[in-house]
């Protein structure tokens, strides 16, 4: 019985919309450049990146550090949920314009070890 309760609790927990607690940050992709190229965010916080692609071609947001891949359709806004993240620098780039479309998420705050 306890196994079932644990199982169902885990299941219900895993479908909770944590996005409602996410702090929103806006980025613009224009002429294959991200603006701002770097954003500073707090540690251990759920984040919602709202990226508006103002170019006439699609782009693919790619980041191994953030473990995200997302197609950014032209002239549309796309949402990418990331975090909670530990302090550090997390780089991202546009897969179709990797030399120009580059940026980073700088996570600042206390680590668990500091607490």
């Amino acid at each position, binding site marked *: 019985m306890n196994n079932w309760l644990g199982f169902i609790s885990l299941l219900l927990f*895993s479908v*909770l919309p944590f*996005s409602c607690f996410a702090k929103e940050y806006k980025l613009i992709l224009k002429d294959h450049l991200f603006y701002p190229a770097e954003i500073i965010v707090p540690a251990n916080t759920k984040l919602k990146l709202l990226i508006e692609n103002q170019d006439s071609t699609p782009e693919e947001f790619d980041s*191994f550090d953030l*473990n995200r891949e997302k197609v950014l359709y032209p002239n549309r806004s796309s949402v990418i*949920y990331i975090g909670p993240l530990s302090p550090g620098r997390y780089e991202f780039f546009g897969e179709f314009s990797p030399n120009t479309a580059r940026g980073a998420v700088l996570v600042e705050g206390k680590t668990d070890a500091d607490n």
Partner: protein
Amino acid sequence: MRFILAWCLTSLLFMASFNVRADGIVVDKVYHPYVLPFEREFEWRLISHQTDKGNILAQRIGLGGSFNDTMSLEGYAVGERDDDGNFGFSAYELELRWQLVEQGRLWADWGALFELEKQEGKDSYEATTGFLWEKEFGRTSLTMNAFLVYEWGGDIKNEWETEFRAQYRYRFRSEFQPALELYAGEDFFGIGPGFIGLHRFSAKRQLKWEAGFVTELSQQGKDHSFRLALEFEF
């Protein structure tokens, strides 16, 4: 959204009510619940299953891609070498993957898989449905698959089966992500190391590789499986 969650709940509860059981080779691929638009891929998989009785080698090639933001379709041709050393075309399969939620939006990510397989030259079919689940823990990711399988036809015993697969990987670097894999089916409970990697050649062109070596633990006797998968995305 309510339908999706209800479907996930129903699937999980239904599968949990069975013992995990499946025959054939349980070791295969642990699916991730993500689909990228514009993605096309060519895939090759090899599974070598070694027991005291001999070796079974299975290979499959697949071609497919996404057809909208959240769904991808892939067709496979499967070849197997049996204990007698005969290798030949054995089955063909159609696979639909469905990303159910935006990555990172919920506490965990959900996807679904539907497969239909027909054995070549036999009245034997297999339909698979199940859920794909993934959760990030810092630089590690836990992925789990639970499948409900129904086999039917004149040349096969009609039966329900269940399979469970899990992979816990450390995202060390894109070319090398070590993992621990677990597979469970009827009379099979295997665990072993693996790794995943990716190399990007250019925009839209990349090669992914996966390998794993799984040892069966629930029984005595030799039972090892080696799996290798290459995916070229373009």
